């Protein structure tokens, strides 16, 4: 029954109240329709967008690229995290990089990447990957730090090789923490792809949103934005659920 506790019910009420408030503000003209259509209108437009399939190619392109960048960030991030964890000196040297990395505007590299690879999908995927991979590395390191000594000793007693230890003990133990990084990587993958599509691109949801923005086409812009938000919340909830299940099995919350 935890799922529908008092707090959860109140949370739903708060969200509904906020939507109702927006609806009221839009209908009464406090927020004019050029700025934002009423939520009920957005919901209708959203439905039309889905069944019309007009922006299907753009949606597929953006979400596909985000998925590629996310996959790369996860694979490279976990491997790099496991390697860095093995070398204390390397880790010490990289520590300042991790600490300042997210203060650096990675998008500043986008122009450079366009010059290198042309105005295609590769620069966008690289930006999204660069944003996400460090979060995965940092959370992998955090997870590996928490592996109890007794598990490592057991591995040694059973004469597991280092790669066996990593695959059977340390990485499975670290999975919930890696998932924390993965949730961030989803957000960063979308930020990277859509952000670079906003800045300069030839297609994709970010491009369509920017195009709709310049044409005052709120009936296209708001549903597309909503779709991105829904996709990101959905992906996040799935990973969050997995994370909680794993931790719950260990008796942690």
């Amino acid at each position, binding site marked *: 029954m935890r799922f529908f506790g008092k707090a959860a019910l109140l949370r739903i009420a708060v969200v509904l109240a906020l939507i109702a408030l927006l609806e009221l503000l839009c209908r009464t003209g406090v927020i004019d329709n050029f700025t934002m259509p009423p939520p009920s209108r957005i919901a209708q437009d959203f439905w039309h967008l889905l069944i019309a399939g007009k922006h299907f190619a753009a949606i597929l392109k953006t979400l596909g690229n985000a998925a590629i960048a996310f996959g790369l960030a996860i694979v490279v991030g976990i491997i790099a995290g496991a390697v860095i964890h093995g070398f204390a000196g390397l880790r010490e040297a990289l520590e300042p990089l991790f600490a300042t990395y997210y203060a650096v505007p990675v998008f*500043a590299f986008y122009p450079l990447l366009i010059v290198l690879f042309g105005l295609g999908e590769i620069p966008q995927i690289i930006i999204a990957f660069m944003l996400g991979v460090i979060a995965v590395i940092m959370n992998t390191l955090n997870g590996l730090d928490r592996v109890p000594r007794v598990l490592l000793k057991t591995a040694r007693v059973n004469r597991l090789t280092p790669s066996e230890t990593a695959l059977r003990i340390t990485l499975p133990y670290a999975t919930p923490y890696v998932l924390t990084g993965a949730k961030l990587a989803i957000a960063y993958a979308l930020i990277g792809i859509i952000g670079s599509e906003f800045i300069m691109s030839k297609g994709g949801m970010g491009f369509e949103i920017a195009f709709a923005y310049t044409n005052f086409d709120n009936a296209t812009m708001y549903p597309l934005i909503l779709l991105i938000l829904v996709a990101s919340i959905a992906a996040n909830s799935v990973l969050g659920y997995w994370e909680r299940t794993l931790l719950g099995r260990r008796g942690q919350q």
Partner: protein
Amino acid sequence: MNFIPFYQRWRGTILLILALVIGWQLLYAAIGEVAMRSPLETLHDSFVLLAKPSFWPHVQETLAAFAMALVIAVVSGLVIGLALGFNRLANEVMEPMLVAFYALPKVTLYPIILLSFGLGISAKVAFGAIHGVVPIALFTINAVRNIKPILIKTGRVMNFSAWDMSRRVLIPAALPEIFSGIRVGFALTLIGTLLGEMFASQRGLGYMLMTAIGLHNVETIMAVTFMLIVFAAAISSILLAIDRRLHKRA
């Protein structure tokens, strides 16, 4: 200053910077003048830019927007964090929503912010602030909730007034964690402000970058990027050092 202990203390950072510069030089050797400039050329171009009077209004615009965004993010983050930290039910209701908002790709919301605030400095400020406010609020909630009850009880036993209680117990106990939040918020606010400038604006360093892309002005792209990174990395390192010291003392 004795050089050896200094080197030992900063060995990691020094090696990292060396590695980055060497990597940069190698990349430059591989790619060449079309897309990049060498570290030395970039350093030179940066000084050239710094000497240009036309460069400073952009710096001023970005700094002003960033400063305003940071003040808004810190103040509202602290207010939200304190309000939720001291109220259990409100926190249970709101914290998951804050976490969900934190994980949203906020870039997507920029057109909405532009529509609401117009194409001026206020859109950038708002965009920077929404990036920074949530982490500061989340860290503050955590800081307040993790104050050891025994500290508060001790304060009560000593008959502290509300003022003494906050000044001598609550603030010192919560400060390290709150500072961590401000450190993270600083970085995110800076990114938000610059992103806002890159997407749509008529002044500022982000705007300079975008114009330079349009003109394929590699010198300016490299020099501005370089200076932004040095600025962000320097301030972050200082904040990180203060952060560590506060946590060590606690």
